[in-house]
C-alpha cells in the first residue's frame, strides 16, 4: 500500500515516466560521445593492415555480406538475426588490433541496441503485442496523457502491480521489453556486418570496388571527399568550441532559477548555431583550392581510369559468395515458413 502510494504519487509518477522516456536517447548520445569520442571516430577511419582471410577478401564480397545479412535479418524471425550477430562477432577475431576496434564497435553496437530496444519497447503498438504474445502485462503505468506520444496503450482493463485494475493503461509492458530486445538483434546484426567491412577494408578500396561495380566516379569521389573530410571537420569543431570556451562561454546552463536556466539554455543554443556557421565556413573555405588541386591531378580528365590496387575475385571469394547466396536463399525460405518470418507480426 505504501509502495503503491509512493510509486504512483503524481510527482514520482512523472519523474519515473520521464526517466524511462529519456534514458534511451540520452544513453545513446552518451555512449557515442563519451565512450567513443573524437579519438574513437578517428579510429573508424584509421584502417590498420592485417593478414587474415578477412583482409584478403574482395571488398565487393564484404559489401555483399553486409547487404545479405541485413536483408535476411529483416525478413526472418529474431533469433536468426541473433545467430548471425554472434557469427559476425566471432569473425571479429580475425581482425588485427582487435582491442582498439572493439573499443569503437562495442559502444556503437550497444548504442544501437539500447536505442532500438528503447523505441521498440515503449512504443510497440498494443495490437502487435497482443497478436504476438496473446496476453500483455503492464509493469508500470505512465500518466494517461502520454498516449498521444504513441506509447503502448492497452485496450480493456488490466491488472497493474501496486496499482490495481486500470482501464486502457498507457505504459511499459513486459512483452514490449521482450519485443524490443528481439528487434534489436536485427539492427545490431546489420551494424556489426557494416563495421566488419569498414574495419577490414581500406576506404579507398571500398570506393575502387564500388566504382568497378558501376558506381559513377563523381559520386565515388564525392563520397571519398566526404569521408576524408570527417577528421578535419571534427578537428575544426573541437577548435571552434574551444575558442568559444576560451572566451568564457559555458556550455552547461547552471542556474537554479528556472527562468535564468531557460535564458542560459537559449543563449547556449544561439552560441551553438554560431559555432556551426563557423565550422561550415572553416570547412568550405578551401573548396576552391580543392577543386583546383583535383583538376591539376587530372581528375575526370580522361574517360579511362586504371586502378592502383588489383581488385580481383580469388577462389576464396567465390566460395564465400556461394555461401552468401546460400544464406540468402535459406533466409528467404525460412521467412516463408509459418511463424518464422518477420512479417506480418513476428518480431
Amino acid at each position, binding site marked *: 500500500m505504501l509502495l503503491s502510494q509512493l510509486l504512483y504519487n503524481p510527482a514520482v509518477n512523472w519523474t519515473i515516466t520521464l526517466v524511462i522516456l529519456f534514458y534511451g536517447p540520452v544513453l545513446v548520445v552518451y555512449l557515442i560521445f563519451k565512450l567513443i569520442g573524437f579519438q574513437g571516430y578517428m579510429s573508424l577511419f584509421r584502417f590498420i593492415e592485417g593478414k587474415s582471410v578477412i583482409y584478403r577478401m574482395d571488398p565487393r564480397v564484404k559489401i555483399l555480406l553486409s547487404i545479405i545479412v541485413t536483408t535476411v535479418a529483416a525478413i526472418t524471425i529474431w533469433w536468426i538475426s541473433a545467430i548471425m550477430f554472434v557469427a559476425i562477432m566471432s569473425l571479429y577475431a580475425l581482425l588485427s588490433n582487435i582491442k582498439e576496434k572493439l573499443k569503437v564497435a562495442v559502444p556503437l553496437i550497444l548504442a544501437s541496441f539500447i536505442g532500438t530496444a528503447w523505441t521498440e519497447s515503449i512504443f510497440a503498438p498494443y495490437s502487435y503485442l497482443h497478436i504476438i504474445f496473446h496476453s500483455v502485462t503492464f509493469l508500470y503505468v505512465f500518466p494517461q496523457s502520454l498516449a498521444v506520444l504513441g506509447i503502448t496503450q492497452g485496450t480493456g482493463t488490466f491488472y497493474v502491480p501496486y496499482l490495481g485494475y486500470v482501464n486502457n493503461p498507457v505504459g511499459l509492458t513486459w512483452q514490449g521489453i521482450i519485443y524490443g530486445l528481439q528487434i534489436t538483434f536485427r539492427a545490431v546484426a546489420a551494424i556489426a556486418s557494416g563495421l566488419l567491412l569498414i574495419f577490414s577494408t581500406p576506404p579507398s578500396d571500398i570506393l575502387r570496388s564500388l566504382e568497378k561495380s558501376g558506381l559513377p566516379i563523381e559520386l565515388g569521389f564525392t563520397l571519398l571527399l566526404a*569521408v576524408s573530410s570527417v577528421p578535419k571537420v571534427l578537428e575544426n569543431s573541437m577548435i571552434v568550441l574551444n575558442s568559444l570556451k576560451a572566451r568564457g562561454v559555458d556550455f552547461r546552463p547552471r542556474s537554479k532559477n528556472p527562468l535564468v536556466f531557460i535564458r542560459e539554455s537559449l543563449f547556449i543554443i544561439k552560441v551553438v548555431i554560431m559555432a556551426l556557421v563557423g565550422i561550415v565556413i572553416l570547412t568550405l573555405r578551401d573548396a576552391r583550392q580543392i577543386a583546383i588541386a583535383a583538376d591539376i591531378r587530372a581528375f575526370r580528365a580522361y574517360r579511362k581510369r586504371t586502378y592502383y590496387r588489383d581488385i580481383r575475385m580469388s577462389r576464396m571469394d567465390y566460395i564465400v559468395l556461394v555461401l552468401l547466396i546460400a544464406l540468402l536463399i535459406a533466409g528467404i525460405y525460412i521467412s516463408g515458413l509459418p511463424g518464422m518470418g518477420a512479417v506480418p507480426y513476428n518480431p
Partner: protein
Amino acid sequence: MAKIIKINNLFVRYFGSDKPVLKGLSLEVEEGEFVLLVGKTGSGKSTLLNVINGVIPNIISATVKGSISVADRDPRKTPVHEMATIVGTVYQVPESQIFSLIVDDDVAFGLENRAIDPEEMRRRVVESLSLVNLLHKMRHPTFLLSGGEKQRLVIAGVLAVKPRILILDEPTSMLDSVGAEQIFGLVKKLNDEGLTIIMSEHRVERVVGMVDRIIGLKDGTIYIDDEPHKAVAKDLSKLGVEEPQVTTLYRLINRDANYYPISVEEFMEIGAASRLDVIERRRDTSSDPVISVNNVHFTYPGSTQEVLKGVDLTINDGEVVSIIGPNGSGKSTLMYLLSGIYRPSSGSIRIFDYDSTRLVGRDRVRLIGYVFQDPDQMLLSSTVKGELEFTLQLAGIRGREAEDRIKRITNYLGINDLLNQSPHKLSVGQRRLVSVAAVLVAEPKILILDEPTRGLDNAMSVALMDLLLTIREERGMTLIMVTHNMRQVGEYSDKAFVMYDGRVVYGGTPEDVFEESHKHPEWGISPPQVFEVSRRIGKPTASIRRVRVNAA
C-alpha cells in the same frame, strides 16, 4: 642552358575587377634554376604562379595578355591537367590537396586518373614516396601525418607525374619550423637533381642561401631580379619582405655596398663583426608571478596518451613570454589549460591568486584572453561589432562602458571603419586584427597569442607585434606567445620556455635558450642570424634592436 619559361609583357586582370594585378611583367627562367619569389600579400606572386601552371585563366577566370611559353607551350591553350605533367604545383594548405585516407592511395590518385598502367603506377608511387622520404609511412592514414609530412605527401603526388618544373606557393606557411625545414631540404635536393623550382616564401632568411635568384614583385611588376647577394642590396624590406638579419647588420656598417652577405659565415668572413657592439639586456626588476603551473599532468578525455607530463612554469607580471618547441610537444594544450578550456588531470595552476579551476565565467574572461591561431576559428558573428559585443556580453560589460570600450579598442587597432562589415569578407591582416580586438575588448590582464603572425607577410607581422607591445606597455599586460618564429622570439620576448615531449625542458632569456638549443637539435630551434653573429663576438643578443655600430 635552355630557357624553360619565357614570359613577355604579361598583363593579368581578374574577372570583375578593373585593376590589373600584373602589369607588363617580363621574365625568363632557365631549366634547373631555383627562383625565390617574394613580395607583399597582394603583390601578384600567386597570380604569376597560377599563370605559369595555367590555372589562370583555365580555372580562375581572368583576362591574360602577353606572351607566355612554358616548355614551348602556352598554358592558356593547354588543359590544366596536361600542363601538370610539365609544371607541378604545391599550394599552402596541404589538407586541401590530399584526397585519400591512406598515403600511397593519395600518390596513386593522379596516376589512376591518367590511366597509367598499374605496374608502372606502383613503381612510381614507391619512387615518389622515397624521394620525399615517406616510404616508411606508405600505408599510414594521411590525416595522422604531421604538417611537414602532409606537405611532403603533396609533393610526392605532384612528382609522380614527372614534371620538369615545380611551383610552390608559400608551401610552409601552415607548417612549424621543423616541417618547414623538411620542405626546404627536400626542395633543395630536388633542385640539385635538376628540377626547376619557383617558390614563393616569406621565410627569406631560411631559404636565401639555397636559391639561385630572387625575384621581388611590387605592384604587379618586377622590382628586383638578381642573384641573392645583389638582390638583398636593394632592400627587401621596401617590398614588405623580411631580409636576412646579417644583411641588415651589414647595412648598418656599409650603406652603399652592392653586394651584401646573406649567411652568418659570409658576414664573419667580411670581418665586419668587430665593428658591432651590443647593448646589454635590461635585467628586469623582479615582479610578482601572475601564473604558476605546478607539476601539471594532462590527458585528453577519452584518450590514454598523456600530453602534459609534469609541467612547471612561472610567468611574472608584465613579462612577454614565448613558448616554443616542436609541434606535438604540448604547447597548445598548455595554453588550453591556462585559459580554462580544460582542467589539469593532476597538479595545479594558479592565476593571480586564484586556483585556476575555480576561475570561471566573466571573472576568467576579464583576467585571461586567448587569441587563436586562425582568425576564422574565432570570428563567428555577422559583423565586427557583433563579434566585440559578444565578448563584452560574456564578460558582463554593458551599456555605456561597452560602447566606450569598442570605440577605444577599434581606434587603437585602426579598425573603427570596419565595425559594420562581416569579418569573413575582410583581408587576412584585418581578420587577424579583429580577432585580437575581440579578445582585447574585455581588457584582460594576461593575453595568450597562438602564432599571432602566421599567414601574415613581414610588414603586417611587424606592425601587429609593435602594436601589441605598445598596448602591453600602456596597459601593463602580460603577453604569452606560442610561436615558431625565432626572430620574433628574440626581438620581443623577455623570456622563452622550450616545451619538448610534454614538459618544459628549458626556460630563460632568449639568449640562454638559443645558446642551449645548440646542444638540443631535437627541439627544432634555429636561432636567428643576429644571435649567431653576436655570439661569435662574445656579446650574444637575440634582438637586432640592441645592436649598435662602433665608429670606425
